[in-house]
């Protein structure tokens, strides 16, 4: 899995966030999260056009083990959702940062992205959780 440094940010609820060229952000869940959850079976996606506040519950990933909520990493409008997850939820396990992307947001405040946790901070969080 290639995560280009500097382009990815993370949340404490184990979402990753990637800023795109057009200013929108793509959101998914991290490899750490999908490993803990196991094989995905159902994904509940938000609606395109939905307006979300930061940390608002916007979907659910359900695995063989458990259901887990997805939280909006920052405030914004949902501009696209990954409908292929309806047919292939396992993309989240096989390619969590690529084919397994979940939604794309147009942030209300683009600078909110820079305030999110970077890779090093997320790695520290994961290491702490594993104790």
């Amino acid at each position: 899995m290639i995560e280009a440094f500097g382009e990815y940010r993370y949340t404490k609820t184990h979402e990753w966030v990637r800023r795109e060229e057009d200013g929108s952000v793509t959101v998914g869940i991290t490899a750490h999260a999908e490993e803990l959850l196991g094989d995905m079976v159902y994904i509940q996606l938000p609606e395109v056009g939905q307006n979300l506040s930061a940390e608002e519950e916007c979907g659910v990933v359900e695995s063989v083990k458990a259901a887990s909520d997805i939280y909006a990493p920052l405030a914004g409008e949902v501009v696209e959702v990954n409908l292929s997850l309806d047919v292939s939820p396992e993309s989240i396990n096989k390619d969590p940062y690529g084919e397994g992307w979940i939604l794309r947001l147009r942030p209300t405040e683009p600078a909110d992205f820079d305030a999110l946790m970077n890779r090093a901070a997320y790695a520290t969080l994961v290491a702490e959780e594993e104790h």
Partner: protein
Amino acid sequence: MVDFAGWEMPLHYGSQLDEHHRVRRAAGMFDVSHMTVVDLHGSRVREFLRWLLANDVDRLRLPGKALYSCLLNPQGEVLDDLIAYFLTENWFRLVVNAATRSKDLTWIKARAAEVEGVEVWERTDLAMVAVQGPEAREKVLALLFGRFATTAAGLVAFQGIAGDGVRTDWFVGRTGYTGEDGFEVILPATSAPDFWEALRAAGVAPCGLGARDTLRLEAGMNLYGNDMDESVTPLESGLSWTVAFAPSDRDFIGRSALEAQRKAGVPRKLVGLVLQGRGVMRHGQTVMVPGVGNGIITSGGFSPTLEQSIAFARVPTATSTECQVEIRGQWLPARVVKTPFVRFGKPQFI
């Protein structure tokens, strides 16, 4: 890796869904060495087991033939479920669960001490590998030799054979916990790693606890601790078929309690459920049967073969075909179906 009844075991070897499909389509293997192998020797073993077990070992006449039975307490409640093999008139083998090992051994030894001529030996020197799937038997047979291999190839369903000569401590049973054909191989623990590697080299996929659970659930097979325990009888657990009330002159531990329950009317039953729509039913969720009452999900999960959620539920006996299950704060409809959900790889209903 997780702690399963004191044993460190893998949930999966990569993907439990892939492992599940491998067993249904080709061959997969499970290290089930956590299971407890108990050998009973002596001149009165058959008679003893006819008293000890709810199913009747008198049905076992063909050497190697096995049956599935509950082990009950005098109140008719389930102490464990197990497989019993008839090997010779003086030797029967039981395979019981890991979580109940200590309880079962204490119980069996105490009951055996009440009769003469029955010795109880726990076989801690043995490991066990279950190889399951349409290609499973051929993969195992290719690794056996001589007469042992020939006899193993001729086993019918629910029959086992012990090895001889060099392979005295080997045992092959045409049994399993997946609903597929296959073998459960019991062998000296020292021989198990090489056997496992040889199977892996032959293309058999290692499979973990996750797939083990989804396979047995699809196959309609109970899990002790979830679907039954010491608070219920086999009649409330979908296991009436494992209780041999006939012949009526065979007394067994728990018989009178079960007869009383039958006479009074068994209040609850274990049924199969299929969720209508998206979501996953899980152990402990509430079941509501309109006009009848409430029940509970005892085992639940996602069926990889059916691509929807299936479960066992303990519900009031009057339940017919529909119910609702409380999942994450919502009531979702489920249909009551006869199990198994899947047979020889095929869904049993639309």
